[in-house]
């Protein structure tokens, strides 16, 4: 995440991404590009990602644009199909944590009191763990599978949504239009769904895309350590793990391409998040 932010900052200072729209567009192009490539994978490559070609540790060539690995799997296929795995895990996990964190934050922030304190303590203690370590612990307990990876990552990001939504709810709650709704006779549930939630939705969207970027790195970490999808399912993190033992022997393509994809996809989502946050909260220009 820090690396991604650093790159964003660098790009901004270089003046390459001057305005928010450019950020957003760049992000969309990267993400959409990867999604399209992975969807079209069967058309783009003749090889299956989980069947050996018989050609082991072949360097990149016209036949194998990204080379092959120690089992003779075509790396290009694995990178393309791997995107499907990564996107499935990461998007479902983030959606799941959003589905838990947002309502909790709304309830906590709106009603306050004991409920709020109880939820906050749980969330804060979860937030205190570094995300990868927490995810690892959960995945280790649940075992390595696609579903468990989703759950492990989802749990990690619930506090992010909770804290943001709770904070926003607290401030929106004190605004005049919420008071006006109360004066109209609106019930609590109506105020939450019609007045509070729509006004924090933009921030949720920003956090959503930022979180995906972060979750991509967490997922990569999980599978690098063997706690995500079991082999031979194509997955960038898993490929990194396989590749890193061959790296010193000079088989750089085993690590370079999956690693590059992780960076690229995470940057793409981070760009979308940055762009969205600028687009949704434009600094108003004062006219005298």
């Amino acid at each position, binding site marked *: 995440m820090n690396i991604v932010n650093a790159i964003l900052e660098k790009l901004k200072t270089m003046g390459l991404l001057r305005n928010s729209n450019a950020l957003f567009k760049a992000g969309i192009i990267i993400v959409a590009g990867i999604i399209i490539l992975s969807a079209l994978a069967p058309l783009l490559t003749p090889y299956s990602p989980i069947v050996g070609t018989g050609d082991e540790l072949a360097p990149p060539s016209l036949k194998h644009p990204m080379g092959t690995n120690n089992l003779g799997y075509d790396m290009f296929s694995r990178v393309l199909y791997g995107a499907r795995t990564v996107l499935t895990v990461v998007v479902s996990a983030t959606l799941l944590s959003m589905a838990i964190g947002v309502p909790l934050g709304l309830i906590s922030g709106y009603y306050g009191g004991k409920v709020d304190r109880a939820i906050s303590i749980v969330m804060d203690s979860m937030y205190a763990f570094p995300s990868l370590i927490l995810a690892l612990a959960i995945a280790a307990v649940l075992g390595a599978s696609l579903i468990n990876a989703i759950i492990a990552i989802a749990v990690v990001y619930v506090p992010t949504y909770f804290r943001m939504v709770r904070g926003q709810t607290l401030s929106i709650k004190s605004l005049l239009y919420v008071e006006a709704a109360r004066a109209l006779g609106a019930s609590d549930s109506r105020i939450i769904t019609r007045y509070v939630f729509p006004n924090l939705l933009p921030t949720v969207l920003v956090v959503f895309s930022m979180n995906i970027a972060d979750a991509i790195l967490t997922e990569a970490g999980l599978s690098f350590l063997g706690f995500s999808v079991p082999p031979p399912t194509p997955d960038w993190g898993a490929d990194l793990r396989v590749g890193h033992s061959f790296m010193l022997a000079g088989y750089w393509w085993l690590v370079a391409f999956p690693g590059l994809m992780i960076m690229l996809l995470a940057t793409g989502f981070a760009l979308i998040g940055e762009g969205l946050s600028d687009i949704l909260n434009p600094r108003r*220009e*004062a*006219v*005298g």
Partner: protein
Amino acid sequence: MTLLKINNLKVYYYTRRGIVKAVDNVSLAMNKGEMVGLVGESGSGKSTLGLSIIRVLPPQAKIISGSVIFNGTDLLKLSEREMRKIRGKEISMVFQDPLTSLDPLQKIGDQIVETILEHEPNISKQEAYNMAKKALQEVGIPPDRIGNYPHQLSGGQRQRVMIALAMVLKPKLIIADEPTTALDVIVQDRIMELLSALKKEYGMSILFITHDLALAAERSDKIAVMYAGHLYEYGSSTDVVNKPLHPYTEGLIESIPDVFMRKEIKEIPGQPPDLTKPPSGCRFHPRCPYRMPKCSREEPPILQVNGRLVKCWLYS
């Protein structure tokens, strides 16, 4: 004797939405020792006009053309350094919100001393301190308050300090931009009393910028009415209020209730225009009850009618 003469001044704002013609070809003359009430709604350009005189406009604003002749010199031709000598000494300004214009970390007395020393390096610190004390006394701040910080004072007292700061070097002109808008009516009355007293005592001229026509009428010698970047009427307060010539002035007077008069109020139909696309001809024509075909085609000239200036085709 004319102290200030603004000629054909144009000030535009360059914004993302387009060019806002905030002050468009405005001319205004002010005599020595006179209080002129510059009346207009928000967006009429009245504050921009005030800020242009001492050239402290926001960065997106630009003075396009015109001149501001103060005491014989064109302020728009002066360098920033020369202008700095004029600000605070010859012309000073009082803003709506004294809390943002006063330094919160500095005692009020020290702020006044600093202003004095900046303009009068020959004055000793002790002398400056005495001057500050006297100025505060004159605006009605008890001398034991001189060591107070702004937050220890009430809103009305802060505005008095601002006025002390503005008048301590006895400038020839004070521009007061909505000086009482943030204050309650009783405090407002006393601040206005104070400004009137300064005018009488030292013969200072005061350009009093306000949205409140009644307040301006009560205290000023003359009233200038601005609307959508144009100056539409300028004349003695009693004349303007008792027999408004311009339809906008008339509409404004008819639309405001008065505590001492049971009267019907009449609204001015429509909305003030968007100044990135001001109406053609007379900018008031879409809302004017007396509009003629000519009004939308041609901008009316400024006419002299019974010792008053009015920009309206009705009088040509």
